């Protein structure tokens, strides 16, 4: 099994290297084939690993080391991977969804320049993400963490010739960097406290070392949260994700929907012991998740760019995952990650089809009536939107979102307002997702279809749609039909903590299910009725108050403006004051000093006899002074 496991990680790196070094000299089809096949091999190897693991089910997970990375000062991490239920679920999703997205991209990005560069970066990303989730020690995890951040930067700014893309990529990198720094400090602290960065060792030693509820444990957990919110685009570091939609659609699907933004969720889930030892930090996670999911729903409601709607939607859904983590429902969070990967990737890819078909137009108010022109895209997008809105019983999103809300309700760490806001958000989610469905696919067709999707793209959409429906059936709640192998499997990864006594209160669960389903359906109905008659626009045009609220939601609740005021402007002012660079001046000052010395000393060389005679006499005066003073005449 270890060979298969290493294959999963190494093959994407090897193909990334090949593509980035000699990809420009290959024919396009070869580059695309290498890119897709490498992730395909990774997926097949992951399936082998999965079957082996499910057969054997080692209690402590499966660990294998390649070599010792370094051995310095007591720190000796190895290039080692550990496979347990959590990482197995993660790599299955990453490789499978990654493989599908690569196939889609091989057709949709075919006409672009830098085709091989694209696949090189995508493979590098898949390799880094796999490293991240499989890492056995935190240093290797941090390597994968930084790797995915780098690939995100490279891929957002893929069309680098346009400066706005570069700025969006910079914004993504810089904002996540703030989180990465917090995570790095947490790693330093962990090493100092525990003497090792091995995850298993830390988690088993943590209850002894850290006092539950102490300030040290809480601060440590908060630093880790800082890293997680940066990568997962939660409040307060969520401003980069809407702008990251400047990248190509497959990039948005893979990185900013299915995998990279869930790295924070994975991190918190992996280090769950540290969080259970710091209840204030866990509650903070839940609060962050709830506030984020609430606020981004409203922002998604008024966006015009279809990809920005989906970006805010991603922020919102990851908020749900954070909420689940914060109330201790670890398996619910990972289950929602599992289903979200499928339907969010599906939504992005079918939106990509619609965008390509409308001459790269992103504004949903300029699209329309694509139901007849792009039938497969329509039906798959509809399935994805239904899954996102948690349409009852038939979609995967229903089961996973339900498990989160049930967790928030029943967990002793939850609070009432958490699940109330989550329920309200269900309504908003349904409204904004079906708003897009209605505006883009129903109504009059405003533009001619410029490009029809290829066969492979349609195939990928269908596969993803299938999973968006069926992926939830392996985690059904107890009150409906007790069939939850995924949840039970995931629980084995979290068996180091006492399982929360989710009192199997069937009646309460059924009532919650009914309420959320009702809210979802109400949202769908609201969306259709309002956008059929376009009443929202009428209200907004009439009242300046409504217009103000509209622009407030549109700008993402003013976070960008706030950060610009608090951080960007002061920093730019300081940079302007220091524009001649004080530290640089020390070094150029040395050079100027030498130059001044030169000019002084060369001005002494006049070539005139009088001046040289004067220097002789001066020397004589100095020497006589010395002699007289020494002999004390």
């Amino acid at each position, binding site marked *: 099994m270890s060979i298969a496991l290493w294959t999963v990680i190494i093959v994407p790196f090897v193909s990334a290297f090949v593509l980035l070094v000699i990809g420009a000299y290959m024919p396009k089809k070869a580059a695309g084939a290498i890119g897709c096949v490498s992730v395909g091999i990774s997926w097949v190897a992951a399936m082998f690993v999965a079957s082996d693991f499910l057969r054997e089910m080692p209690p402590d997970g499966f660990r294998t080391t390649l070599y010792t990375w370094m051995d310095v000062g007591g720190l000796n991490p190895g290039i080692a991977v550990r496979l347990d239920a959590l990482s197995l679920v993660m790599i299955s999703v990453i490789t499978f969804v990654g493989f599908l997205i690569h196939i889609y991209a091989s057709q949709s990005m075919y006409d672009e320049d830098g085709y091989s560069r694209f696949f090189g970066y995508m493979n590098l990303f898949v390799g880094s993400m796999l490293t991240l989730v499989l890492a056995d020690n935190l240093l290797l995890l941090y390597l994968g963490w930084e790797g995915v951040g780098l690939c995100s930067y490279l891929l957002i700014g893929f069309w680098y010739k346009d400066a706005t893309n570069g700025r969006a990529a910079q914004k993504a990198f810089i904002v996540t960097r703030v989180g990465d720094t917090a995570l790095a400090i947490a790693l330093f602290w962990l090493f100092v406290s525990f003497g090792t960065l091995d995850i298993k060792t830390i988690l088993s030693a943590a209850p002894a070392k850290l006092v539950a509820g102490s300030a040290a444990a809480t601060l440590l957990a908060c630093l880790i949260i800082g890293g997680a919110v940066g990568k997962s685009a939660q409040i307060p570091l969520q401003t980069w994700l809407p702008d990251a939609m400047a990248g190509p659609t497959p990039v948005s699907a893979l990185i900013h929907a299915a995998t990279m933004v869930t790295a924070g969720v994975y991190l918190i889930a992996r280090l769950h012991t540290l969080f259970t030892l710091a209840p204030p930090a866990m509650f903070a996670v839940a609060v962050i998740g709830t506030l984020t999911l609430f606020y981004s729903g409203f922002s998604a409601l008024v966006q015009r760019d279809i990809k920005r709607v989906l970006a805010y939607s991603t922020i919102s859904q990851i908020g749900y995952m954070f909420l689940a983590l914060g109330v201790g429902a670890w398996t619910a969070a990972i289950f929602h990650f599992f289903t979200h990967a499928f339907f969010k990737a599906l939504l992005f890819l079918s939106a990509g089809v619609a965008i390509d078909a409308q001459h790269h137009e992103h504004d949903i108010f300029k699209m329309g009536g694509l139901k007849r022109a792009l039938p497969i895209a329509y039906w798959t997008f509809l399935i994805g939107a239904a899954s996102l809105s948690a349409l009852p019983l038939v979609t995967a999103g229903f089961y996973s979102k339900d498990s989160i809300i049930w967790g928030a309700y029943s967990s002793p760490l939850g609070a009432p307002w958490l699940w109330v806001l989550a329920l309200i958000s269900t309504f908003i989610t349904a409204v904004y997702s079906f708003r897009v469905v209605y505006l883009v696919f129903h109504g009059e067709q405003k533009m001619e279809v410029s490009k029809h999707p290829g066969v492979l793209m349609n195939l990928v959409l269908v596969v993803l749609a299938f999973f968006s429906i069926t992926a939830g059936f392996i985690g059904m709640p107890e009150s409906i039909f007790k069939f939850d192998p995924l949840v039970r499997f995931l629980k084995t990864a979290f068996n180091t903590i006492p399982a929360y006594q989710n009192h199997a209160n069937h009646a309460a669960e059924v009532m919650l299910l009914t309420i959320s389903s009702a809210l979802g359906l109400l949202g769908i109905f609201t969306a259709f009725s309002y956008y059929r008659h376009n009443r929202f626009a009428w209200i907004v045009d009439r009242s300046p108050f409504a217009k103000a609220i509209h622009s407030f939601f549109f700008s993402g609740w003013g976070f960008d403006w706030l950060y610009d005021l608090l951080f960007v402007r002061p920093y730019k002012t300081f940079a302007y004051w220091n524009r001649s660079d004080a530290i640089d001046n020390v070094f150029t000052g040395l050079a100027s000093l030498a*130059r001044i010395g*030169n000019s002084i000393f*060369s*001005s002494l060389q*006049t070539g005139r006899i009088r001046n040289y*005679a*004067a220097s002789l006499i001066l020397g004589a005066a100095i020497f006589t002074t010395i002699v007289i003073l020494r002999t004390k005449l």
Partner: protein
Amino acid sequence: MINHAMMFAGLLFVIGAVGIMIRRNLLFMLISVELMLNAAGLAIAVGGSKWSQPDGQVFLIMIFVAAATGVAVGISLLLANYHERKNVDADELSLMREREPIEQ
């Protein structure tokens, strides 16, 4: 009293040195050099007198010889230079170019 004579010699030397430093005319420079030589010789003679040895005066005679030779050759050089450049400016006797500024 002997030390006052030495002081006198020293002051004459200083005056000669000042003359070299401030004059631009070659002839005046030569005059100043003569002054310095004289002062040095006087100092030697005074020293010999203090310790009642004739060596001081002998050396003074040697200095006479050297000074005379020096003046002869110096005047010849002065005249040759004057014939070449038609002036007795000491600052003209410089082959140094103008200082070029250092590039940044």
